[in-house]
């Protein structure tokens, strides 16, 4: 299980392609900018200033030609006066240039930081949302997929906010400013220049369709190539054992070729689009010179103005050349936002009640009342289970693999909700309490002790600052973990890595015990998995710690050690999801039923093997 069907996790949902613009998603994305209204306002203002200052240099160039050079050359003003005007205009030019650069810089930094902060919020919201989804969700969704959502997808959105959206505004402003200045400089020439706009709109509309289809085709086919590659690499031994190398290669070659063809389409579109825009620019400037030349000959236009128009033309065309890149960013971001929002919209299946019951004092009585439970109906894991564990009682649950023991532990922590029946804590249905409240009173030692990156101490207290260093040490001492911790180079401050690779399995288990006891719960649930790789000394420490853990509180243990089941008050025997026997070790053995056989099978054999 858990294997096969390669491909999983790598490019899931990539076939959600994203249109470049989706009003619903865009509106939702923009809502994340609301807290930064003022910054956005400032950024737009800066954009405006930037566009404005950007078009000033061509105007100054006009004056340099018209008011300084031309009159001086023609002798209308003395040479010295020409030089002086040149110098003055030069200084103005530098100032404007410096301002333009400054605005641009400021605006750049501001938009990036707005984008980053807005996406910080979204990322945190997503993380928070995931924290409160039920375990069933995590059973279904591989970690890799969730990681992609919270890292790559959000990054694509940041990119869109700080580069895509803002640049579009900037481009619009620039276009507008250029048009205004042109009109101010010379209305006729300006209107003539604007004749090119329909042509440009036509060209872009034509290529936009082509590019959209190409980009979409590339995205789908790339996803296919990578999925296939991932699956083939994962199942390489099967490919080889079944001598499928040639067939697999041929199939891959087909997918790869399709991707190449899609790319080729995009390359063709891009290689036609950019030159056609450049050609339009050249044609426009030629037209400008012909018309401008005519008016100059008529004496209705100056050479400087014509030159300024020509320089402005450059700024007019630049945004259009960048269009394809913008388009791609938008398209990718739409796909990402769709995936992120889908995740955000996933409802938690386990929720706190609107009016939760608060327990003043928890005694620790646990009751299963006709409980039936399935991870996936109709594969029932528990069938109509009834039992009561009184406060302070210690109970072992035994049964063959798949009998439903682990599910009982998960249900008492309310990791899942039961389909039928009720689970009561001190007579209150778990579903009527806050999950936090339940878990505060119920401690769990899990089968696979999970160690977080941090120190030994931080792994015992987790993030609960209310637990003092003293309590951490006490907890470690209580479960016999202090001996090995004291031997570590930095003691309680020793750094342990993710998955606890620096600690042995036995040490991890002791650490998990210490963690559970540090939180001092009224009810203790223990998954006591027999581990073959624990040395006898540690094994003795673990057994001793287990006894201490269970003393004086309600405890339920999934026991794999004979010593544990011999020391509990009562044993509950599960078989195929049903409660079949219940009683003390001695009584159950005397019944010679399921427990007796289980005992012969598991515990005695285990003891024999150990001896």
């Amino acid at each position, binding site marked *: 299980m858990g*294997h*096969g*069907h390669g491909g999983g996790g790598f490019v899931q949902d990539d076939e959600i392609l994203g249109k470049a613009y989706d009003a619903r998603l865009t509106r939702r994305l923009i809502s994340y900018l609301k807290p930064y209204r003022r910054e956005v306002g400032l950024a737009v203002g800066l954009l405006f200033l930037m566009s404005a200052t950007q078009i000033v240099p061509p105007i100054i*160039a006009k004056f340099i*030609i018209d008011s300084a050079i031309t009159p001086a050359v023609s002798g209308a003003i003395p*040479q010295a006066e*020409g030089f002086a005007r*040149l*110098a003055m205009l030069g200084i103005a030019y*530098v100032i404007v240039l*410096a301002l*333009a*650069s*400054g605005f641009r810089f400021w605006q*750049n*930094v501001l938009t*990036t930081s707005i984008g980053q*902060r807005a996406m*910080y919020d979204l990322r945190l919201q997503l*993380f*928070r949302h995931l*924290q409160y989804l039920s375990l069933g969700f995590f059973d279904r969704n591989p*970690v890799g997929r969730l*990681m992609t959502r919270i*890292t790559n997808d959000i990054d694509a959105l*940041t990119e869109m906010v700080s580069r895509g959206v803002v640049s579009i505004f900037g481009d619009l402003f620039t276009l507008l400013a250029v048009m205004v200045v042109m009109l101010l400089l010379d209305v006729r020439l300006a209107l003539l220049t604007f004749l090119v706009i329909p042509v440009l709109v036509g060209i872009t509309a034509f290529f936009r369709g082509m590019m959209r289809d190409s980009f979409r085709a590339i995205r789908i086919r790339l996803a296919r190539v*990578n999925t296939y590659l991932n699956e083939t*690499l994962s199942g*390489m031994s099967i*490919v*080889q054992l*079944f*001598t499928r190398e040639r067939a697999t290669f041929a199939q*891959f*070659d087909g997918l790869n070729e399709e991707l*190449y063809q899609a790319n*080729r389409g995009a390359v063709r579109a891009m*290689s036609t689009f950019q*030159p*056609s825009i450049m*050609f339009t620019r*050249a*044609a426009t400037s*030629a037209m400008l*010179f*012909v018309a401008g*030349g005519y008016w100059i*000959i008529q004496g209705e236009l100056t*050479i400087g103005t014509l*030159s300024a128009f020509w320089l402005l033309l450059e700024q007019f065309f630049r945004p259009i050349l960048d269009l394809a890149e913008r388009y791609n960013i938008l398209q990718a971001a739409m796909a990402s936002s769709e995936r992120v929002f889908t995740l955000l919209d996933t409802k938690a299946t386990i929720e706190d009640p609107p009016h939760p019951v608060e327990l003043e004092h928890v005694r620790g009585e646990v009751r299963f009342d006709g409980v039936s439970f399935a991870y996936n109906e109709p594969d029932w894991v528990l069938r109509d289970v009834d039992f009561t564990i009184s406060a302070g009682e210690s109970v072992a649950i035994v049964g*063959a693999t798949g009998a439903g023991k682990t599910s009982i532990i998960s249900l008492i922590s309310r*990791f899942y909700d039961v389909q039928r029946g009720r689970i009561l804590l001190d007579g209150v249905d778990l579903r009527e309490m806050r999950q936090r409240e339940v*878990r*505060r009173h119920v401690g*769990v030692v899990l089968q696979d002790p999970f160690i977080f*990156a941090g120190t030994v101490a931080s792994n015992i207290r*987790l*993030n609960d600052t209310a637990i003092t260093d003293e309590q951490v040490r006490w907890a470690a001492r209580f479960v016999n973990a202090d001996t090995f911790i004291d031997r570590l180079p930095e003691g309680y401050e020793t750094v342990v890595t*993710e998955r606890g690779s620096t600690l042995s399995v036995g040490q991890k288990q002791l650490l998990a015990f210490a963690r559970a006891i540090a939180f001092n719960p009224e009810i203790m649930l223990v998954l006591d998995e027999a581990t073959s790789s624990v040395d006898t000394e540690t094994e003795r420490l673990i057994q001793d710690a287990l006894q201490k853990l269970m003393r004086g509180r309600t405890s339920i243990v999934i026991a794999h050690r004979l010593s544990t089941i011999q020391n509990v008050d009562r044993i509950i025997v599960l078989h195929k999801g049903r409660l079949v026997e219940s009683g003390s070790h001695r009584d159950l053995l005397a019944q010679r039923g399921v427990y007796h056989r289980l005992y012969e*099978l598991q515990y005695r054999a285990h003891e024999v093997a150990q001896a």
Partner: protein
Amino acid sequence: MTMAAVLAVVPPRFIGQIVDALNVGTELGVVIVLALGSVSFAAAEAITRGFSRYQIINASRRIEYEVRNDLLGHLQTMHLGYFQHQRIGDLMARLTNDLTAVRQMYGFGIVMTASTMMLLVFTVISMIGVSLKLTVLTLLLMPVASGTFWIVGRKVHHKFQELQAQFGAMSTKAQENFSGIRVVKAFSQEEPEIRSFAEVNAEYVRRAVDLAKLNGLIWPAMAFIMGIAVLATLYVGGRDAIEGHLTIGQLVQFIAYQSLIAWPMIALGEITNIFQQGWASLVRLQELFDARASVADPEDAVETPIRGEVELRGVSFAYGQAIVLRDISFKVPAGGSLAIVGATGSGKSSLVNLIPRLFDPQQGDVFIDGIDVRRYRLEALRRAIGYVPQETFLFSVPLRENVGFGAAEPLTDAQLQWAGDVSQLNKDVEDFPARFETMIGERGVTLSGGQKQRTAIARAVAKDPRILILDDALSSVDTYTEAEILRRLRSVMRDRTSIVVAHRISTVKDADEILVLDDGRIVERGSHSELLLRRGRYAQMYRRQLLEEELEVDEERDQHEKRVRAEREVESGGSAPRILRERLGLQD
């Protein structure tokens, strides 16, 4: 590229001439002719540029395609040990990110280098034609731009790496949280976890903004420097014009040249980056190609058809330092059957892996029909073997293709039915939406563990192999179905060799010989009855399983009877204890 560059430097000359003509006063006709000249050259340039760009970028895509194919082809020849050593994630990263970097180097990198160089050469020549003084001035200022870009670019690179490191930290934090979500929930640590994620997240944002500050500097600085270059031209050129050394048309022409090379000059810095990254990635791809398969075809392969006799002689095998098989010898005649039992980690899987040469042993030899397996072509060897691995791996293709995965030809319906019958898959298939055409995997039906295993068995049987190897292949199948499969397999395997690894005695008891492995050694061997008489490890296993079966028996009977009723087949009508006894090979 050269042509495009030559064509590109012409239009500014026309524009300069227009301006000059206008300045001294001219006919409109002259202006029109000059303008038309300018447009035609621009058109020619656009076409050549577009064409050459298409050629080169397209070639880079073709290279990407070829390299991707070659990589898969190469990886397919690599031995299993290589894939256990290399993580799939890392291989995928190389096949995606690194390949992209290399493609960009070959495509965009070359296009940019070529066009920049050409354009630079021809523009500078043309510039000198207008004014040497202004050319020198420009050439002094322009490198400042690329220089700045390069220096800032290096710092940006550094900051970028810092950002990437934090990205890694954030991913690790998220991964740890998602993997340990049970503990997080059990200890109500959601809020503290959110706080600690917020910290990493905030640091990421801080670094990103930090990078933006530096990165945001580049373009304004470039625009500023280029602006200064234009101003210097206007100022110095303007003085020259006033003094009569230069015409206004020439001045405008010169500014046109400057704007022509402005972007390529800036891009020089970018190009350096592309080449650096591309080169690093190329090295990483080369590493993949340099890896040599340790299991490969022999130089002079034997071509005799395989009958199916399998023999191991003094075989020892180790993964690195860990020895897993010690001095193993056995012989199965063609058509015979062998079973292997033993605890987890005793070396059973490693042993059967040696037969289709998923690994080669360090010591000893593996023979098929008396010939060393290393002397067969891998394809011929593996074609003769049907293998059902311990961990079932199915592909995301229709069920029919999964079953026919190893067959030389697409399976006929009859073959498919037969394979499905032997593996007891047909009953499940009836419930699938499109029967054998049903898609398997995330985009289709998700199979249960037992269904997966039975599909894998059907896949191995459909190959019609001389030797069938089942590596713990019935572990997820219930005991009743297992008995059915074994009964059908026995008739299929009558004249073929079978090697079965199993935990259940019921699976192995009918084998001609049973090997009991412990810590890589054969500790017991013989037939079922011989081994029972020895009262050793095998007998002990047997006793335990009898007890287990007793536990199962009530449920089994229920299930079985339900099944029989549902199918309205009265096959045997035997009571549960009898079924049990039969299955365990006990005679009354």
